[in-house]
């Protein structure tokens, strides 16, 4: 694979310093660095409880060089709404409010607050970095954990029994200006999406797949490769949705088999051939459903035969 130098495409803002406290191989700091590089220093970050509470560093230090407000688990979007309102009252409409939340804070405990903010179309950029379980507390399942996965609360004898919640569709159903999936493993795609989001107003949602080596039970150097495999096997297709209506793939997906992706991770080691086949069938079915969304025209009065 040819090398790309991110600095050639976006300015290096150094808004996330070295010396942060992420585990080796964690993709979240890379994601934060790329997102902040694109958003720039005129950004306020709201950070509810997550791994990043630790990663950003304990008082009196902070690895983030933008203002940060740490807050309770469920409150990211609500606190961001308040920060936004205050900045607007101060005439600072050009400051970006970034909410950076894990999958637990997004899919589970914070979904009410997120839905409220999206329904009000709050002028915020919301990034969910999704490592597919409660990793900070020691790998417990969340509603972002994929079917069949081992976690400490879904032991291998009784692995995760629910399908991962379709967060992109849930957010798109709020008809917000922009919703997208991305991963730091495809940095150019991510940067393009953040730039696009930055140029818009209203609620912008980016769902970032963020590999966690201790939680996924893979090597420290395998995370980004696994994220690419997740994309190319269509486990995590890269997409964007504008205005809740216009769905688009942002990359050509190779439609690789899911098996190599699953077999590389200890959290899926226990899966039988039948279970792997079941996951493949689910991934294929979801792809087809997404394909229909991408190709179908948004419903208008004209094409609905009304008027």
């Amino acid at each position, binding site marked *: 694979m040819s090398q790309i130098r991110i600095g050639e495409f976006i300015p290096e803002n150094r808004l996330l310093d070295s010396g942060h406290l992420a585990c080796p191989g964690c993709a979240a700091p890379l994601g934060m660095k790329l997102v902040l590089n694109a958003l720039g*220093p*005129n*950004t*306020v970050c*709201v950070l509810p409880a997550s791994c990043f*509470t*630790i990663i*950003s*560093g*304990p*008082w009196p230090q*902070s690895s*983030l*060089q*933008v*203002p*940060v*407000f*740490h*807050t*309770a688990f*469920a*409150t990211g*979007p*609500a*606190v*961001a*709404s*308040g*920060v*936004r*309102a*205050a*900045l*607007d*009252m*101060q005439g600072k409409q050009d*400051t970006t409010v970034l909410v950076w939340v894990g999958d637990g804070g997004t899919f589970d405990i914070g979904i*009410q*607050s997120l*839905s*409220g903010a999206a*329904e*009000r179309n709050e002028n915020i950029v919301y990034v969910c970095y999704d490592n597919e379980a409660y990793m900070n507390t020691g790998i417990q399942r969340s509603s972002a954990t994929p079917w069949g996965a081992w976690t400490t609360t879904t032991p291998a004898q009784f692995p995760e029994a629910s399908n991962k919640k379709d967060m992109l569709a849930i957010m798109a159903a709020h008809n917000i200006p922009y919703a997208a999936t991305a991963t730091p493993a495809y940095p150019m795609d991510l940067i393009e999406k953040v730039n696009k989001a930055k140029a818009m107003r209203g609620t912008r949602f980016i769902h970032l797949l963020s590999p966690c080596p201790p939680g996924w039970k893979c090597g420290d150097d395998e995370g980004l490769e696994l994220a690419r495999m997740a994309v190319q096997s269509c486990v995590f297709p890269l997409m964007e949705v504008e205005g809740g209506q216009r769905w688009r793939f942002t990359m050509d997906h190779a439609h690789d088999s899911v098996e190599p992706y699953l077999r590389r991770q200890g959290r899926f080691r226990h899966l039988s051939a039948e279970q792997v086949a079941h996951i493949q069938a689910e991934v294929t079915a979801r792809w087809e459903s997404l394909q229909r969304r991408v190709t179908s025209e948004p419903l208008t009065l004209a094409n609905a035969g009304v008027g």
Partner: protein
Amino acid sequence: MKKVMVGNHAVSWGARLARVEVISAYPITPQTQVVEKLSEMCADGTLAARFIKVESEHSAMAAVIGASAAGVRTFTASSSHGLLYMHEMLHWAGGARLPVVMVNVNRAVGAPWNIWTDQNDSLAQRDTGWSQLYCEHNQEVVDTTIMAFKLAETLSVPVMLMLDGFYLSHTAEPVDIPDQEMVDRFLPKRVAPYRLDTEHPHAFGGLVKPDAYMEMRWLQQEALNKVPETLAAIEKDWLRMFGRSYGPIELYRAEDADLLLVTSGTVTSTARAVVDARRAAGEKIGLLKVKMFRPFPSALLREAVRGLRPVPRLAVLDRNISPGHGGIFAEELRSALYDLPHSERPEVCGFVLGLGGRDITPAVIGDVIEQARAATVPTREDLWVGVNP
């Protein structure tokens, strides 16, 4: 300018005169008129504020926390289950030392459902780091709402005002609306010493290890300890400009009294009338109104009763209950007075009454007085008044 208004609208007027900049709230009976009126004021432009209509009380408190951290003046209002739902974020506002002001319209807590007044909702928040002030009438509500902002912003401590559901929230009384220009002089625009500022980036509320967490709690305690003297100074200014003051506690006709009724909220007005009637009949009885519950004004209370001769017996009227213990004002009062020498320490009789909005009439207070006088040794266990087991 005098206007006749219900307690809830007195709250809205107080927030408007304080020129709050960001409001966030969620409706709950009996608080709803507060936010309805504020919505109207925002809509017709008489109040230049952003009103964030959130999906829950938890988010309402979170939103005003975010706005306050960014440096503007913020306000919210709630009641009962709404306040309980905010509980986590009440702690966050207290710990983050944000000068949020809120009004809680006191309402009982379920189960079973009950929409009428008692104080269990707010008293369950006593350890969240907020100052708590209980109001007696609508003039006190509008005045205290404005003063609360000054208190909160002076000490970086959030302030919660209470008014009794329906008995005050929905009762119309004449209110003298303070002049806006004078209020602006009394309470200038908020200047936040620390705020979310991209020119000077700082992290707020991140992980603090055991080596410094305790110092932060100590600073919070120091700030709360300064509330009585700070409020006294603020009230002095208010008195000079607007001719009214209330105090954290108030003694009423306490001279020569051998019995003092201890009250908070609207019961105080009823008790005043009972005291007046009994005094007219020659009885030596007075009243001690406790407006400030957090910080508990222990030193002021000791000072107030210490000068009284004879040492009066105290009959505490608690419209609340700490199940398994007793009336909460009585508990805290006993604790505060324990430091007095035995010979100067009043006996405290606790009475639990008026829960879930049950009316506390002059006759009920009369019953309390007879029981308090009859008790030869006040029991540590509070008496329940008017209960039919």
